[in-house]
């Protein structure tokens, strides 16, 4: 499905088939998550598994639907580490205060 007719530096992107495949994968992971809800896992474990699966989904959406896989590497290196850095800053300076909630939990 790639049109190379225009000689611009246009990014080819994935084919229709690949995109539909990615979509099916995303739906499958969604159903896996719903299935996990049936298993009555402890909240901490459940949260960890769900976050990991969601990060996988986010990576698929960004790589294929948002074309990041087909952009210059410099763009990826510009966007992703900066975001991760900011999130780490939140974890270091902001959320440890929230851990005090654990001490206030009724026993």
């Amino acid at each position, binding site marked *: *499905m790639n*049109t190379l007719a225009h000689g611009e*530096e*246009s990014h080819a*992107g994935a084919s*229709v088939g690949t*995109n*539909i495949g990615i*979509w099916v994968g*995303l*739906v499958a992971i*969604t*159903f896996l*998550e*719903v299935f*996990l*809800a*049936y298993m*009555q896992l402890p*909240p*901490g474990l*459940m*949260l960890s598994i*769900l*976050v990991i*699966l*969601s990060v996988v*989904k*986010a990576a698929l*959406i*960004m790589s294929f*639907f*948002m*074309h990041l896989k087909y*952009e*210059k590497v*410099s*763009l990826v290196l*510009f*966007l992703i580490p*900066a*975001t991760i850095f*900011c*999130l780490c800053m*939140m*974890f270091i300076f*902001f*959320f440890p205060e*929230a*851990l005090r*909630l*654990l001490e*206030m*939990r*009724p026993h």
Partner: protein
Amino acid sequence: MHDVKTDVAMESAWSGGKSPFAIGSKKLGMWLFIVSDTLTFSALLITYSYSRLTNPDWPRPFPIYPAIAFSTTMTIVLLASSLTMVMAVMASQRNDRKKTVMWMVATMVGGLLFTGLHLTEWMNMIFKEHFTITGNPEGTPLFGAVFFGITGLHMTHVMIGVIYLGIVAVGYGRGKFSAEDVEVNGLYWHFVDLVWMFVFPLIYLMSVKY
């Protein structure tokens, strides 16, 4: 000073006059917006995760049927609208204006369907199950602020996305906007979908009633 060294420096991708990322400024602007919005949603969702794990009396108002089945349907609808947006962007890159507008309208229908389903759920929770932003019959009142705050902010993004799609679809159909505008619009729409991929498991699947 026209020695070889400066000439090489002038030709560098970073010396100006060229896009170092080989994308247009609109697309770069949208990516920067997406990064900042990512941090907004991350702050909300991570704070929620702390509250969820530290409150043993967190309400679990969502039975597998009908609530989880309902929100799973919403997830599939939003994912489907992402796929139609991919098709719209591909059609716009082939300069197929008619098909582009058609796929964009399909995306808008998906967004509106999602918003409609979401509002139905909200109305059910507020008027039948008596969950409000300040209290609920099942547990910590924090739930209302978290649930309506996060899903409300996401729903606002979906509604803005539908309006944005409408404007770009009309403009592109009339030849006012380019394929790049459609692609930038697509980035926004996929981002809204991406956020829901975190909201759905964290808010709904962490509060299933058994």
